[in-house]
C-alpha cells in the first residue's frame, strides 16, 4: 500500500539555523499539507498546497516558513531561522482531493531546536 514518507525522522538544530523537512507524498495525490504537533499539544494545521501554490495557511505559517515542491515527488517545508518554540513533530500529509478526501499522514519528523 502506498504511503507518505518523511525524512529525516529526527532533526536537531541550533536556534537561528535553517532547516528543511522533506516529504514524499503518495504519487498520484494532488494536495499536500504540513501540520505540527508540539509535545503534549494538539495537531495544528500549517499549510496546504495545490497546483504549485499555497491554497490555505494558518496564522502559524508566518514569513519564516515556506513550502516547495522542487520536483515531481518531494514536498518540503523550510523554516528559515528556527526558534526554540519551533521544536515539534512535523507531519506531512497528502490527499487526492481537498477537505473531503482522506488525508494520508507520514510518520513525522521530530524537530528539536537547541
Amino acid at each position, binding site marked *: 500500500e502506498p504511503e*507518505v514518507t518523511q525524512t529525516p525522522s529526527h532533526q536537531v538544530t541550533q536556534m537561528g539555523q535553517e532547516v528543511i523537512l522533506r516529504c514524499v507524498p503518495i504519487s498520484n495525490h494532488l494536495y499536500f*499539507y504540513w*501540520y505540527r504537533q508540539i509535545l503534549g*499539544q*494538539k*495537531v*495544528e*494545521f500549517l499549510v*496546504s498546497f495545490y497546483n504549485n501554490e499555497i491554497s*490555505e495557511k*494558518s496564522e502559524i505559517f508566518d514569513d519564516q516558513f515556506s513550502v516547495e515542491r522542487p520536483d515531481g515527488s518531494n514536498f518540503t517545508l523550510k523554516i528559515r531561522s528556527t526558534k526554540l518554540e519551533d521544536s515539534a513533530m512535523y*507531519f506531512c*500529509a497528502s490527499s487526492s482531493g481537498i*477537505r*473531503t478526501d*482522506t*488525508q*494520508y*499522514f*507520514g*510518520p*513525522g519528523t521530530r524537530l528539536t531546536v537547541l
Partner: protein
Amino acid sequence: AQSVTQPDIHITVSEGASLELRCNYSYGATPYLFWYVQSPGQGLQLLLKYFSGDTLVQGIKGFEAEFKRSQSSFNLRKPSVHWSDAAEYFCAVQLSFGAGTTVTVRA
C-alpha cells in the same frame, strides 16, 4: 472560525468494555468531520469521516461515530476494546484538530 473540543483528556477502559470518546465542534456550515488515531511514535491514521448522508458512520478497526447536528457532536464509539486500541485519538473538523484523548486499556 472552526474549533474542536475533546472534553476528556484521558480515558481508561478495561479490555472488552465499550468505549466512547466525545467530540464537540464549532463550525458555521456543514462540517467535514474526522477521527484519527495516533499510536506512539506513529503518524495519524484516519479511522472514519463524515461529510453527508447517514449520520452513523462506520470506520476501520470496529469504530463508529455518530454525527448529531443538534448537539454539534461527533462522538466515537467501539463496543469492545482491544489492548491494541490504546492510543491517542483526535477529532477534527475541516483542518482543525482537537487536543486529543489518550486511551489506556487495562487487562
